[in-house]
């Protein structure tokens, strides 16, 4: 990875954005996951990115979880409703998730553009040696 450094660095960016998309996908998949008011709600996932430990590229420093409070919704017909007819839904905003998804997707694509541009550049350099 030392000769073609640019490709390796862009690869770390692709990995981080892939994990961000995974987190968004997890949040969206659980947006309608109801729970009892006494139980914790689904916790929103946040990906924390940081500079890579070796200084080349980026990495996922960790996953931070949102609160367990959720939002209480009055729905007496729900099988999980408590005595007052309330259930708990995770406090996830769909428009925020969709925006995050777009940012993650664009960042993923831009890192892949770096990979293909770097590849073209390296190939042009190798072409010098062929003539």
């Amino acid at each position, binding site marked *: 990875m030392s000769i073609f450094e640019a*490709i390796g660095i*862009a*690869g770390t960016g692709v990995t981080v954005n892939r994990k961000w998309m995974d987190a968004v996908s997890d949040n969206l998949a659980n947006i309608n996951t109801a729970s009892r008011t006494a139980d914790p709600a689904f916790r929103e996932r946040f990906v924390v990115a940081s500079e890579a430990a070796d200084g080349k590229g980026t990495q996922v420093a960790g996953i931070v979880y949102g609160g367990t409070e959720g939002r209480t919704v009055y729905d007496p017909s729900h099988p999980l409703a408590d005595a007052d007819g309330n259930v708990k839904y995770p406090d996830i905003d769909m428009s925020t998730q969709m925006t995050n998804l777009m940012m993650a997707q664009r960042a993923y694509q831009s890192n892949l553009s770096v*990979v293909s541009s770097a*590849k073209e550049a*390296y190939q042009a350099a190798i072409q010098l*040696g062929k003539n």
Partner: protein
Amino acid sequence: MSIESIAALGGSSGTIATGWGQALDNTDNAQMTRGISDTVSAMPTAPAAVTAAGALVGATGTPAVGETSGSGFASLLAGGLDKLQALQSTSDGLAVKAATGNLENVHDYMIASNEAQLATQLTVAVRNKAVEAFNEVMRMQV
């Protein structure tokens, strides 16, 4: 070793998820096999030609400079071949993972195979240049 894993990939891509297998079949087999057949033909000849060229440079009257730059180039090329081998085996390992469905990141394999392809092209270019230089010296009138 490289060719085995490619064969494994081609053979078992039918068993993994449809989109996945398709993409691998279309994009990578052709590139990888092309890269590898280049390497296979290039690898055995390169070190011999280079040591010959190095020895020749050393013998033609610039002893000190010829000696050091000759051995330097040979070790540089040996190091380059080792790196190529490492990149190829990384790519092979990921190819097997892709074929068995254990690949975590699709791009990891694509990036590794691209790096292996570039390293192969670079090695072949350097080898061709070295052989060309050797032939040029051999054609010299004395």
